[in-house]
């Protein structure tokens, strides 16, 4: 029995370390290869030994697909390909391919140079890993091999984010990666056609949230202070937001951006304009939205200068780096504010302060008291519950599988999906396998003659009745053809064997044979209105291809013998006629 198997190695009832194995029609595909922000031990990477204990990963996996450049979706890639060992193709969109190595290098630097980790992947490994990448264009059908094909759809989560359709024959799976169903200031909304996959694997970060309009959130937001962000993604969105607001309100307070990376990042945005939203694409010739006037580079010394300011600092979950440094500096003053614009995974400082913790244990047993205001504002470009439902409605999957979310929230969404769409919904934990039986139909070639003959009949007025197509399926190697029986016989060089029946029906009739034939004719003509009944010049009667002849009885002149003759193919009608005639003819009036 064919089946689709899905096993999350990461992001199963969890956010972070996205890595999902899919087996479909004998093909094995790994979706994303992320790291976990909440851990710095073995648990930060997926457990690749699950895939195969002995063999090489390359032999087992047909391809790897990366949905977007966020580290929780691609952070383990160099470890996976260079240290564990994988030489097969890795597919991602071009912006992802451009930006991903920069973020990986950044991540490596923090891990190795700042935290002093040994046995981490090297810069060279990142380069070698990126050599295995094949760029995928939106809507392009990429033939991974003769049977497996993948296709990218716009996901709108960050620049270059894509959803992927994985297809073998008539079976398919769609993996959304992270996506956003509402266009924002620089990206468009995710879109997919009605591709009716067997399974839709969707993220569910905001499974229970329904976001209100962004306008009011924007106004609350514009007071001051520290905004931890990731260098690429939301940062650009927030920069555009502040830039336009500063311009409109003529504000003077400085806005700083903490890393040199971002300036470079903005260059990418300028070069990948086709991946942004309609408005930016339309106006970029006049004004490139990624050239900011009010936003300046941040210097460490600015943190201590008096007066209001807004600082964007990386990383976004306050788990390391400059954002954490500034946070420590400013945390003690209740006039300051930290705004968390995105989701924080468990274990990070960001998650702790968002859950209301005000005393934080830092390295070296120091305790940091947080007096500053803590605000959470979802600027994260994930689909909310409404968006997820919308996407399910768009794609019309047979089954849904939730990943990249918290178990409790998933549970709620799962019920909602099952109720509304009447499809099964799964939410496996990491390492847990979901198996879906599939029943793919079998494509064969039908000879046009046979098909047209059937379709022409289907056009008749009483086409309501289901009509039977009869033919012969010729299976030669892997070539399946459905042809008419006549053609099959001819192709195989076989002769038809004709089976014919002739039944004698005795009738009591004293008239001449010819007159009996006429009576038979008029009787059949009146009963069989839908059939072609003919009286031939030689005295015989035909009903369709059935031949009826009247003969004298050799012994009894008062009895006539009707010879009813038909072929095996006309058996029903022939046998019906004999029984009809056996009942006798109506008396001539």
């Amino acid at each position, binding site marked *: 029995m064919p089946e689709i198997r899905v096993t999350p190695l990461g992001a199963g009832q969890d956010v972070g370390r996205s890595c999902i194995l899919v087996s479909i029609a004998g093909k094995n595909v790994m979706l994303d290869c992320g790291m976990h922000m909440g851990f710095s031990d073995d648990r930060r990477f997926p457990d690749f030994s699950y895939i195969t204990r002995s063999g090489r990963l390359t032999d087992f996996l047909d391809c790897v697909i990366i949905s977007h450049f966020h580290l929780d979706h691609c952070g383990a890639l160099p470890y996976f390909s260079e240290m564990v060992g994988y030489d097969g193709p890795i597919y991602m969109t071009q912006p992802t391919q451009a930006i991903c190595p920069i973020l990986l290098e950044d991540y490596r630097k923090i891990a190795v140079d700042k935290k002093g980790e040994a046995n981490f992947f090297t810069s060279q490994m990142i380069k070698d890993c990126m050599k295995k990448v094949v760029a995928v264009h939106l809507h*392009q059908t990429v033939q991974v091999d003769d049977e497996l094909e993948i296709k990218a759809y716009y996901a709108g989560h960050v620049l270059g984010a894509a959803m992927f359709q994985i297809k073998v024959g008539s079976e398919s799976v769609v993996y959304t990666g992270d996506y956003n169903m509402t266009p924002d200031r620089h990206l468009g909304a995710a879109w997919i056609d009605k591709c009716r996959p067997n399974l839709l694997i969707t993220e569910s970060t905001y499974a229970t949230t329904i976001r209100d309009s962004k306008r009011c959130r924007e106004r609350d937001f514009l007071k001051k202070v520290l905004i931890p962000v990731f260098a690429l993604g939301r940062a650009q969105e927030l920069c555009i937001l502040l830039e336009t607001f500063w311009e409109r309100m003529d504000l003077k307070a400085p806005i700083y951006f903490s890393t040199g990376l971002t300036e470079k990042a903005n260059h990418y945005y300028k070069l990948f304009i086709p991946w942004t939203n309609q408005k930016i694409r339309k106006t970029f010739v006049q004004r490139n939205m990624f050239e900011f006037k009010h936003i300046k580079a941040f210097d460490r010394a600015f943190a201590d200068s008096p007066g209001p300011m807004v600082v964007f600092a990386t990383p976004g979950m306050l788990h390391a780096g400059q954002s954490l440094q500034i946070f420590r500096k400013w945390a003690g003053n209740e006039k300051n504010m930290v705004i968390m614009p995105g989701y924080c995974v468990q274990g990070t400082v960001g998650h702790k302060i968002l859950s209301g913790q005000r005393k934080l244990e830092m390295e070296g047993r120091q305790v940091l008291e947080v007096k500053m205001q803590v605000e959470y504002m979802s600027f994260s470009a994930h689909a909310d519950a409404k968006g997820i439902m919308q996407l399910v409605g768009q794609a019309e999957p047979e089954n849904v599988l939730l990943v990249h979310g918290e178990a409790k929230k998933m549970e709620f969404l799962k019920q909602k999906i099952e109720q509304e769409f009447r499809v099964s919904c799964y939410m496996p934990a990491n390492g847990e396998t979901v198996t879906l039986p599939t029943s793919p*139909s079998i494509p064969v070639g*039908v000879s046009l003659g046979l098909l047209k003959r059937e379709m022409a009949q289907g056009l008749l007025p009483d086409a309501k009745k289901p009509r039977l*197509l009869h033919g*012969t399926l010729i299976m030669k190697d892997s070539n399946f053809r459905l042809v008419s029986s006549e053609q099959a016989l001819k192709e195989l060089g076989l002769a038809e064997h004709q089976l014919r029946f002739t039944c004698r029906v005795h009738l009591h009739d004293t008239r001449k044979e010819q007159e009996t034939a006429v009576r038979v004719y008029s009787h059949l003509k009146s009963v069989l209105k839908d059939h072609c009944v003919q009286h031939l010049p030689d005295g015989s009667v035909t009903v369709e291809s059935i031949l009826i002849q009247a003969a004298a009885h050799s012994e009894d002149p008062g009895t006539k013998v009707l010879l009813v003759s038909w072929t095996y193919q006309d058996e029903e009608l022939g046998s019906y006629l004999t029984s009809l005639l056996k009942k006798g003819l109506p008396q001539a009036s």
Partner: protein
Amino acid sequence: MKLYCLSGHPTLPCNVLKFKSTTVMLDCGLDMTSTLNFLPLPLVQSPRLSNLPGWSLKDGNAFLDKTELIDLSTVDVILISNYHCMMALPYITEHTGFTGTVYATEPTVQIGRLLMEELVNFIERVPKAQSASLWKNKDIQRLLPSPLKDAVEVSTWRRCYTMQEVNSALSKIQLVGYSQKIELFGAVQVTPLSSGYALGSSNWIIQSHYEKVSYVSGSSLLTTHPQPMDQASLKNSDVLILTGLTQIPTANPDGMVGEFCSNLALTVRNGGNVLVPCYPSGVIYDLLECLYQYIDSAGLSSIPFYFISPVANSSLEFSQIFAEWLCHNKQTKVYLPEPPFPHAELIQTNKLKHYPSIHGDFSNDFRQPCVVFTGHPSLRFGDVVHFMELWGKSSLNTVIFTEPDFSYLEALAPYQPLAMKCIYCPIDTRLNFIQVSKLLKEVQPLHVVCPEQYTQPPPAQSHRMDLMIDCQPPAMSYRRAEVLALPFKRRYEKIEIMPELADSLVPMEIKPGVSLATVSAVLHTKDNKHVLQPPPRPAQPTGGKKRKRASDDIPDCKVLKPLLSGSIPVDQFVQTLEKHGFSDIKVEDTAKGHIVLLQEAETLIQIEEDSTHIICDNDEMLRVRLRDLVLKFLQKF
């Protein structure tokens, strides 16, 4: 399958393909050579031009369009292969009742829009005081001087479209990416492939499950800026329609670029100006890149380069954001991240300046000697007209023709006598005949269809037998207003067998490796997809309450029974009969076989090699028993 050929211009094709009940238009190029019959449209009233004798100032701008060979409102989709081949789009989408969809890549649409915008702008900014159309009347045209007298189909010449029509036409385009599979009504699949000629230029595959047509239009194997041509996907075509080959088969583009640079340098060094009539996109990117590498070594770094077009800025900006559609070298630049084309640097260092027109800023910045890139290459409208008038009288200046679409001598005619130098360096990167024959050997289509011009040497070089397509079987040629029946017959169609039905099939092996199964199934056809489902179970007779009518019993004669094959060995058959309780069996030999007599039942069975005939009394039970015994020896199909 039929091909309606609406354009006779081999590089500006317009064909309509009818394939499996879909009507697909392949390109809609606009042949603008007819504009050469008109006088230039100067920005400044020119006493010289308006005082020319004879038939002065005709009705502006007319273009050759297509004939009514086919009702264009029946066209389902239009496939565009590159931005030069979509210039007639507004005429079709806005004036023929067309209701379908147009498919094109994003760069094709964006740059096509720029070309149309430029054209409309050029025409509209010099409105005509009067327009004449009566001369198109056949009786009057006859009296006109040559070549107007000989121009064909002047009645199809049209006024230029408006920007409103352009926008409306472009709104009907759906963007597609290379290798995207687009389903048309479930019957046909179309796929654009990279053709290597221009940004976003594509060849198209039009296929069903069993037939494949390739449409090759404007392809290039040279390494310029666009993504390389995808040749492999053209393999296994039943028919390959080949259009858009190079218009200058004898010129080598690389040599022409070299000549271009050296002539440019020579003129400038002597204190002259260089005028390059060009389109605002395409070869100009390559020329700027060459100059970028060339100017410093040639000592031209102080010479200003001007690019004047209403869409100059947009064209330069757009070229930088289509990294995905560029060649590998340029793509990798984006990863750095750097703009893929070096003209960004030329602009930054003020070596290249762009202006929407000669009005405004340009007049302040204008320094001579200089190099000006501007349109239109026909020299009939656009800012180029002004520069021709301005510089034509000095032999220091040079006009260099790089675009191959117009005869440069005809283009220059109204400006004669000219003192300025004229250099002809046509750069056409499209396939030449050597490359075509290599390509055809590589992809091996069963049939090749092409414009008739490609099946014979060019008229001017009739001895050059190498300047034509050479393939086996010989290419089928078409000319304008012809309808070709394409030479292949469809035999098969895809049908899906539902898994439940597949499970119920009983295959039997007839020969080694060949199995057969008879299929009786219900055919469902929806959206041109065919599905076979298991036949419904026979309905249970519904109680005896309802009175049956006689006609209910009449069997449907269209219920099909399988065909039979095989032969019946008489001895075994007789044994079987005996086993099943028949006695008193007599066998007689006949000329062709045997007769088995069941004397007791007054039944006679004639058995021959290919037929069996059971003749019995009207005893249905007996007949069915005998039938089943006979069928045991036969195979069903």
